[in-house]
């Protein structure tokens, strides 16, 4: 990685980010002046009604679309200052997306799916093999490396997607309803994987978009979006007052 990475604890910063789709009369404001930062070791959940701008927030944070106004800073890089090539490189090396529908390539094995981002970044498949297997091991699927997506359960496929999102030491995980297609228990396991990745001390962090309260509760911080604005925030206190008397 570049030297910038270690300079700051802040992985991602959104500064006054607004996003409009379309122009003029029919323009839709999906984000309106969003300020948000994610530090290393931090998992931030985003909650909000359908249409409140959650997916747009992730798309903009991940550099997939430039905001209409405002600035996105990833690991110290101002996205607006990067060339298209630099942006693509930054995305490949720093960012990992996880979607509701897994988005694995069916003709590739789990290992090949996880290796893919590294190979796209110029690694030989032989060299990519090791870190890909490490990433699969993190999500407890080291023994399924040779399986194709169709041979894996939904929960397992999503764990492969998480491995793909973190492979090669990529630090910012952007997950859009990652548990949306999973039953509650399987979803919980996926959350556990995300959480342990962020807690591993490797400097990773992430944004988790979900409407499931029980899953959002795994985050360190929860921001609430309404009509493209952050209207409130919940931060878990270090010591729970509620449970102070409850420890057995």
């Amino acid at each position, binding site marked *: 990685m570049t030297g910038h990475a270690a300079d700051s604890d802040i992985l991602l910063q959104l500064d006054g980010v607004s996003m409009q789709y379309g122009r003029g009369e029919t323009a839709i404001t999906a984000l309106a002046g969003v300020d948000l930062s994610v530090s290393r070791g931090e998992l931030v959940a985003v909650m909000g009604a359908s249409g409140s701008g959650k997916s747009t927030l992730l798309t903009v944070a991940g550099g997939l679309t430039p905001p209409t106004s405002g600035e996105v800073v990833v690991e110290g890089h101002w996205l607006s200052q990067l060339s298209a090539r630099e942006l693509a490189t930054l995305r490949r090396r720093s960012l990992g997306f996880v979607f509701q529908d897994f988005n694995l390539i069916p003709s590739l094995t789990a290992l090949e799916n996880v290796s893919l981002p590294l190979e796209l970044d110029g690694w030989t498949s032989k060299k990519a093999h090791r870190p890909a297997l490490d990433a699969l091991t993190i999500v407890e699927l080291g023994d399924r490396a040779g399986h194709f997506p169709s041979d894996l359960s939904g929960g397992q496929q999503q764990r492969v997607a998480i491995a793909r999102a973190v492979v090669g030491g990529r630090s910012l995980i952007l997950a859009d309803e990652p548990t949306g297609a999973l039953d509650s228990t399987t979803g919980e396991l996926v959350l556990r994987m995300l959480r342990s990745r962020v807690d591993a001390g490797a400097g990773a962090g992430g944004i988790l978009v979900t*409407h499931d*309260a029980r899953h*959002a509760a795994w*985050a360190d911080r929860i921001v*609430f979006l*309404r009509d493209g604005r952050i209207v409130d*925030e919940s931060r878990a206190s270090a010591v729970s007052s*509620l*449970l102070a008397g*409850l420890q057995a």
Partner: protein
Amino acid sequence: MSVRQSLLAILNQGPCYGYQLRAEFDRRTGSTWPLNVGQIYNTLDRLERDGLVQKADIDADGQNYVEITDAGRAEVAEWLGSPVVRTMATRDELAIKLAIAVTLPGVDIAQVIQVQRTATMRTLQELTRTKNATADPESSEQLAWLLVIDSLIFAAEAEVRWLDHSESRLTRARAAGLADPLPLNTDVPKRGRPAKTVQANA
């Protein structure tokens, strides 16, 4: 909260004295609902009046033991065998608060809902942290405590879902031109209402 039946179920294990009952209740519920000894004795009095427990021995330390009766045992079996019914009489402060708030002019109900949502999510975060920091239970006390935590987690989740539901219901009602605030009804019949100036001893 079924303090009465809980204490009875504990007494079904054998005679206890007041402080002992409190300790037993606490350790089985992770001290989530602390009871004071006064509550315990009040409850025991009523249980005795109803013939569900009776006085037993006094030990060398002067502790008054209470033991369960056959009727008490039957009540425990009945309690464990039937569901907890949440009656309408269960006062749900939050539901009442929202119901009143929707009818008031000048109240940003979305904000009222959000304030509650944030508070409940914070609770849910803390419960989740506590649960995740707990290893697999190694004792019955820990297992009982985890069950209590789970129940609090599911209750908090249900509350958030209900808030989400209320918010979208409200949004739809507003869009349909409904959900206007209710002004005070000025046509209330005056009959039967004592005039201010009338003194009780006049």
